[in-house]
């Protein structure tokens, strides 16, 4: 019983981690889908959110709310700023866009270590959610369960916005046929900035919410970037549903997989990627945010 309980608890951990990756990866997918850019500074936005949580929360629920509000503002500003620095490169080679986002990531990483030092910083969950409850005979942090609910709500909200709202229609129209969208009077530049801002909000919010799970430390930016990239590739760079499934899979491999077979876990991820890429066949620049 104890053994099964441990696997259940780890599997729930995997769901929480998977949903964290989903929120980040959804932002990455949004930016990739609308602008055709692999935003290599996306992990940096997560890390900025995590540092924000460290600065403002300290176990305080009000502080946590403040950090969330600041995170939304920072994500919007950060995404819009990225959109602005990328604008002069419109129509240029994808290499230039990769270089710009890499440059931003390096500058920010240097800034973070200068301000916060190179040591990992602990972030405690807000006090009312700091306890644990009994799950399959094991104590389980309430915060992680709350996180699962909140992340699921974010995912559902995102899906509704893309599929049902006017903003979603404009977004999908711009993705599938930019010249036609422009001809019907859609301001493509504004849609792009909005998508970048949306992607930024998702990454920074994930950082604030996820800080008690995956806290701020140098290198977390690349870890998050890598894992969310794998999620986007596995998920088919297209649908929110596919991204969700891929994120949950990666979450399970990273937790239950590591518990079951520590040495094989990275290879499992690699094999999954391999199978998906081989089965899917040749793709070019696949725009995302198509029918879910």
């Amino acid at each position, binding site marked *: 019983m104890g053994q099964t309980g441990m696997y259940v608890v780890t599997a729930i951990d995997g769901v929480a981690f998977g949903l964290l990756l989903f929120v980040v990866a959804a932002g990455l997918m949004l930016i*990739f889908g609308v602008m*055709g*850019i*692999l935003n*290599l500074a996306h992990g940096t936005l997560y890390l900025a959110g995590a540092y924000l949580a460290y600065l403002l929360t300290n176990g305080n629920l009000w502080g946590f709310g403040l950090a969330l509000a600041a995170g939304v503002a920072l994500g919007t500003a950060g995404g819009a700023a990225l959109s602005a*620095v990328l604008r*002069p*490169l419109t*129509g*240029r*080679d*994808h*290499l*230039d*866009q*990769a*270089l*710009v986002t*890499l*440059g*931003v*990531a*390096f*500058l*920010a*990483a*240097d*800034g973070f*270590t*200068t301000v916060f030092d190179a040591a990992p910083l602990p972030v405690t969950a807000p006090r009312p959610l700091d306890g644990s409850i009994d799950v399959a005979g094991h104590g389980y942090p309430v915060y992680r369960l709350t996180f699962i609910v909140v992340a699921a709500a974010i995912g559902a909200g995102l899906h509704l916005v893309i599929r049902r709202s006017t903003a979603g229609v404009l977004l999908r129209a711009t993705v*599938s046929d930019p010249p036609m969208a422009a001809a019907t009077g859609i301001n493509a530049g504004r849609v792009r900035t909005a998508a970048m801002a949306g992607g930024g909000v998702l990454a920074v919010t994930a950082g604030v919410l996820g800080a008690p799970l995956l806290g701020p430390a140098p290198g977390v930016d*690349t870890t998050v*970037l*890598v894992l969310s*990239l*794998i999620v*986007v*590739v596995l998920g088919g*760079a297209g649908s929110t549903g596919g991204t969700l499934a891929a994120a949950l899979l990666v979450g399970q491999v990273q937790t239950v997989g590591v518990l079951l077979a*520590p*040495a094989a*876990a*990275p*290879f499992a*991820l*690699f094999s999954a*990627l*391999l199978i998906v*890429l*081989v089965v*899917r*066949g*040749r*793709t*070019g*620049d*696949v*725009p995302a945010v198509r029918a879910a």
Partner: protein
Amino acid sequence: MTTTTVTPVNDAPTAPYSPASRRSVHVAVAAVILTAVALPGVVDAYTISLATTALVLAVLAMSTQLLVGVAGLPAFGQVAYFGVGAYTAALLAQGGTTTGPFHLAAAAVTGAIAAAVTAPLALRTRATGFLMVTFAIQSLAATAAARWTRVTGGDEGLHTSAVTLWAGAAPLTNAGHVYLYVLACVLALGTVVALLLRSRLGLVLRGCADHEPRMAALGHRVGAELTTGYVAAGALAGAGGALLVAVNRYVSPADMGFDVAAVALLAAAIGAGTMTGAVAGAFAVVAARDWLGGTTGGHGPALLGLLFLTVAYGRPHLTPLTRWARSALASKGKT
């Protein structure tokens, strides 16, 4: 659906040169090589160690350039094959084989094999998709190196003894000697790359960068040609990995990490499509990150970040610059 992407125009040295301009280029190259050989007698030990680091990075940059600048594929994963080569050399050294040139050859072979295995994955995609998949290859290779503790020593890495020039020779422990050994290897590898670029394969790769569908329509087996180019780039990166072990006598997953991959891409981008440019780019990167970075109290990453932004915005101006340098050399040769 697929969108057509604008592939970069290659302004690489395909244009015919007059014998005079070719001679002046040769004179310039000879001058650079002579300076490089004389370097250990002129500068201090720290500068020599930086130059050695730059030479190793130059091989990785050339490998990246073969895909980025020549074949028009934004490759982020060459550092994975670099790592495969480095671990090959380190494991050989731990097994008692210390001959450097043998390490180089073996690492090139394992790098090529690793590239051949992963080429079908990467070459299913183009443009940003290619960037994503090669990024995934890089990160998974680094993770595998960190987790496969039994073989790679995990995050602790592998320490090795110094390489020798041939079996039974004295180990290369003097920094100046290691530098000269690496320089000789880089010159040999550079010659191979120069020949490759002038070969039919080099031309086909350039053609694919300019207009792949047309190359296919002309009857080229584009998939096979690109795979060959990818494997050649993997072999080159693998050889670079062996040089890394010869220099550091140590390898760890950090040597195939995100930062190294980003820096290799930067060096290739600085090179504006040319191999000599990629080598110059490697030296520029080491100068910014280690030399200037050291004097600014460890803000090397910030300097690199600024270099990334400068290169991204300035890249259209880099190509005319290399063209200008070339024509300046050519006109000098005529007088």
